[in-house]
């Protein structure tokens, strides 16, 4: 037992060493992120001092940029499952190689989610009051449970696989495969529960629709893998991790389908609301065309629709997606488009008009901008550091001293059937 603890300490110190080593541009990148984090920290201290008055939220619009980002990021975290399902359920070899990178992204994104909730809370000093949680009635309690559960699951799976590899051992399937399958269901649950936060509210007609959870998932399963393609490109270029074109194309295929489904759901919702033209269509009208001269949200929503459609077009047209640059631009468009449409585009119209018919426009304050940017920077920092530690282990470049050497030709060793794959490749 003490052996394991000793190895864990070696694992930790070796990981920290990997994180601190890097090129000049790596340090510049870290400095860039840390500068944003410092700015956000100052902004947050300011907010703690004077209260959420530092934001542009009001009683009519009680949630703003923080919860919008949170909502979007929950989807990004869930999206790791789009790599896990093909890899584990359908034994897709190409995705097997990159699935750990997707799970690490989920860990970083979940930390961002929890941070966005923390900065939105009026009394963060009382967060421990969750000991008296209102379960099963409050959807927010459910959300806290599933998000932390998902963080633990992904944290365990990735740590176990990397640690085992670091020690030069073969992972015990019993110790992680069941968790992988639990995590698949769990990933869908985190986004569903987050959607239920909104769709369960009778007071808010804009959200009180059954399509909300499916739309959430479709959008997340488009934007998440799109971010993954961008990240994998960077990892391949900068860290020398061999990401196969097949893996990228498999993810591209996934987005092609999910983005079309996302647009279809969005269109169904717009049609139902606008054609019947009930009172409930008011929020939709505010979002798409503006109400009584209030048009703040309109350009963003149309921008998001254009970005989504552009991305869908690229992902489904061979002439476009074969060009790696165009594909990356389209991924950026999907990430940004869904961010606007699922974040601000979903949260804010729920409050306009207010439950008593008031129209109050909302745009984030400078404080909200700085704090949000800092949380994104923290997420990027966490992911960068995790990759910095994980990639050398995955590549077999970093091993515990005296660890048995594995065959150097495969980095998919920790996954099931790895030997068969290696064998197949050797034969062909």
């Amino acid at each position, binding site marked *: 037992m003490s052996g394991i603890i000793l190895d864990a300490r070696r694992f930790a110190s070796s990981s920290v060493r990997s994180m601190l080593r890097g090129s000049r541009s790596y340090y510049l990148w870290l400095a860039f992120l840390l500068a944003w984090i410092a700015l956000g920290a100052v902004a947050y201290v300011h907010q703690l001092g004077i209260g959420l008055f530092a934001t542009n939220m009001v009683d009519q619009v009680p949630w703003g940029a923080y919860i919008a980002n949170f909502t979007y990021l929950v989807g990004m975290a869930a999206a790791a499952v789009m790599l896990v399902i093909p890899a584990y359920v359908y034994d897709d070899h190409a995705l097997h190689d990159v699935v750990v990178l997707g799970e690490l992204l989920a860990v970083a994104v979940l930390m961002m989610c929890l941070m966005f909730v923390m900065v939105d809370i009026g009394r963060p000093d009382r967060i421990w009051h969750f000991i008296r949680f209102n379960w099963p009635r409050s959807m*927010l309690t459910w959300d806290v449970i599933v998000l932390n559960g998902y963080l633990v699951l992904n944290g365990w799976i990735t740590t176990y696989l990397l640690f085992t590899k670091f020690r030069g051992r073969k992972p015990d399937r019993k110790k992680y495969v069941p968790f992988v399958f639990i995590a698949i269901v769990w990933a869908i649950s985190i986004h569903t529960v987050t959607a239920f936060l909104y769709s369960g509210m009778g007071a808010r007609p804009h959200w009180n629709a059954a399509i909300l959870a499916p739309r959430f998932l479709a959008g997340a399963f488009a934007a998440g893998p799109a971010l993954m393609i961008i990240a994998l490109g960077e990892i391949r270029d900068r860290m020398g991790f061999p990401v196969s074109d097949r893996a990228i194309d498999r993810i591209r295929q996934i987005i092609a389908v999910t983005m079309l489904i996302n647009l279809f759901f969005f269109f169904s919702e717009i049609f139902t609301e606008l054609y019947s033209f009930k009172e409930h269509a008011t929020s939709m009208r505010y979002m798409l065309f503006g109400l009584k001269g209030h048009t703040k949200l309109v350009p963003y929503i149309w921008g998001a629709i254009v970005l989504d459609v552009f991305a869908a077009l690229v992902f489904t047209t061979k002439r476009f997606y074969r060009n790696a640059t165009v594909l990356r631009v389209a991924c950026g468009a999907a990430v940004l488009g869904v961010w606007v449409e699922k974040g601000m585009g979903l949260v804010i119209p729920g409050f306009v008009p207010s439950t008593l018919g008031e129209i109050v426009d909302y745009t984030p304050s400078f404080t909200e901008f700085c704090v949000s940017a800092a949380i994104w920077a923290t997420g990027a920092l966490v992911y960068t550091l995790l990759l910095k530690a994980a990639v050398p282990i995955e590549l077999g470049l970093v091993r515990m001293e005296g660890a048995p050497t594995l065959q150097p030709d495969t980095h998919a060793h920790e996954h099931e059937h790895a030997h068969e794959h290696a064998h197949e490749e050797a034969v062909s």
Partner: protein
Amino acid sequence: MSKSADDTDALMSAAERVEKLTETRLAENGTRRTFLKMAGLGAATATAASVTGCGSTAPTSEEFFRQHYKKLTAEDKERIFKRIEEETFARTGVETHISDPPPIDGVEFAYALNLSVCNGSRRCVEACARENNLPDDPEIRYIRVFELELGSMEFDDGTAYYGEGKVPEPKKFYMPVQCHQCDNPPCVKACPVQATWKEPDGIVVIDYSWCIGCRFCVVACPYFARRFNWSAPTVPPDRINPNQGYLSNRPRFKGVVEKCTFCLHRTRKGRMPACLEACPTGARKFGNLNDPNSDIRKILDTKRVYVLKEELATLPRFYYYFE
């Protein structure tokens, strides 16, 4: 709670009943000896706190590690109320008294508002603000009065921001909205930490010391009844109402939610809510649903009443009617 000649008798008996109830509840929650012992301890802690000077700004460790309201014993409450009183005194120099009148057995409160006579004076809004120690900066008001066009019940077409000029304006009518104390409250369901709940007399309350400020309840409320303290609320010392209820008008702080409580520190002692007393037209009626002679029962029995957003099945205890 009828307004008949034997008004005083009814009030007295209600007040007495409350006193008796409080006494029995105190006795239930611990033997007298522990009560005295704890009271002594509490006093010692309080003195220590005042000597070191802490407790006025940052939350004390006692405040920080405090139990949920429903787990507090009578002694805990005594100690906590005393500390809050001392903090208020240190901050403002005003001597306040915090009580925690329990709900009265067999009483269920309800409210009715006559839209035909409400003239939009907003006296209720101001009386409520004074009674409940609502801050002017940032302005928090529990009651919102809408000026609506005759011929429409749509809030979208009305405004809550009509001027200070003469009311009522021609061709307009006025509709005050405050917490409806729903029997099926969506806000209570939403709260992740049980900081808000429905009392046996129907009043939905918040423990301001337990609320984490997530504002899920604000989002869930269909009546725009909940207010969040976006910054630290300040009430000028000369405007502080010293008669305070722990679950109603005691001091609140930055980062928590608050709302109308039907003035439970008054109504549970047999008095009328402040908004009702201030109404110049008699548009407001309040009382015990279970008392066949109460004003509220007479209205429900004889008038055609309606509730706001009935389709949401929130079952409000706040009725509107025309006459």
